């Protein structure tokens, strides 16, 4: 990883065996929670309103686990070339906000999209970009403080050649040792455990998807949380018209 926090390329595929173990570990968490909630429901001690609440949670947990398995299938099938085309990144950000609105609401949080004017389209695969942002936003949901906002942001970087799309969370300050571990592991294209709820495999998947689009992911540590971002090349196609 360079000093600005960007991930370097390389290492793709060499950690596949490691990632299977991590995938198993990460899928264990939602399964554990589903089992606990199912056992609680079957105990008969829950009120009708609690029952409705728990069933709603079980639905969201299942959907999250299914997203993860679907992403893993995509990562495994990366020998297929993904079609790249001009994509409006803010449209994708808004789709992600809509897709996760129910999950965020169930956690009592909200996901905001910052308005950016005159942002050019980027060269990307719309579905992969969506999946990257879903992973970042899901990670942020679990890391952010209860009252901490999560925000999807975009900015045009130097020389107007790259757009950075970030998911900014506000959570507990990450100790430097943990942060170094996270960034070093990102560089090595390995799943990481520094943010145990979802970032390990989610960030690994996001990195693999980014590489398929000649994009890169990175992270910025803030005093009160973190930003995870993907950088994509600006599409020159439309600017030539």
């Amino acid at each position, binding site marked *: 990883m360079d000093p600005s926090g960007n991930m370097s390329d390389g290492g793709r595929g060499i950690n596949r065996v490691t990632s299977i173990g991590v995938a198993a*570990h990460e899928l*264990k*968490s939602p*399964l*554990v*929670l589903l*089992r*606990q*909630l199912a*056992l*609680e429901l079957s*105990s008969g*001690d*829950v009120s009708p309103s*609690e029952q409705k609440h728990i069933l709603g*949670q079980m639905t969201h*947990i299942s959907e999250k686990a299914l997203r993860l398995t679907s992403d893993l299938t995509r990562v495994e099938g990366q020998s297929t070339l993904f079609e790249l085309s001009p994509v409006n990144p803010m449209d994708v950000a808004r789709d992600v906000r809509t897709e996760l609105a129910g999950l965020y609401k169930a*956690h009592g949080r909200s996901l905001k999209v910052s308005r950016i004017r005159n942002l050019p389209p980027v060269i990307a695969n719309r579905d992969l970009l969506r999946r990257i942002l879903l992973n970042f936003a899901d990670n942020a949901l*679990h*890391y952010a*403080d*209860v009252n901490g906002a999560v925000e999807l942001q975009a900015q045009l970087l130097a020389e107007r050649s790259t757009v950075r799309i970030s998911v900014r969370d506000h*959570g*507990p*300050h*990450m*100790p430097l040792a*943990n942060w170094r571990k996270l960034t070093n592991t990102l560089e090595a294209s390995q799943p990481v*455990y520094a*943010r*145990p*709820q979802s970032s390990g495999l989610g960030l690994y998947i996001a990195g693999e998807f980014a590489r398929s689009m000649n994009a890169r992911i990175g992270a910025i540590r803030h005093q009160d949380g973190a930003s995870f971002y993907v950088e994509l090349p600006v599409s020159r196609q439309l600017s030539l018209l």
Partner: protein
Amino acid sequence: MTTRVVVVEDDAWLAEHYLRILRRGGYETYHAAHALGAIDIIDDVRPHAILLDVLLTGTTALALLHELRTHADLTAIPIVLATNLADQIRLEDVESYGVKRILDKATMHPDDITAAVRGVLA
């Protein structure tokens, strides 16, 4: 007198589940989502027991256990670990930190949570 239990768990919905189970068992419950917040709550509440996850966001449970050992008035609080890493942690290795029970999240029953807390308070 009500028995106070602090739950340290960064999965919000799993924590919610623990709190419901413990409240039904008659315990007064408090929740911290991460180790730093846990220290403050434990210091304020002075719980009778702590239910602690291991892989916490940011600082891990081990750092929290170390921190608790440095406070003379908090060292006597019994701790129950509830973890996905139960097969990798031996009770004898963590007993010196006040850990009295280890629950395996993958195999435990909700009743085991109250049973473990009751057990460490006996």
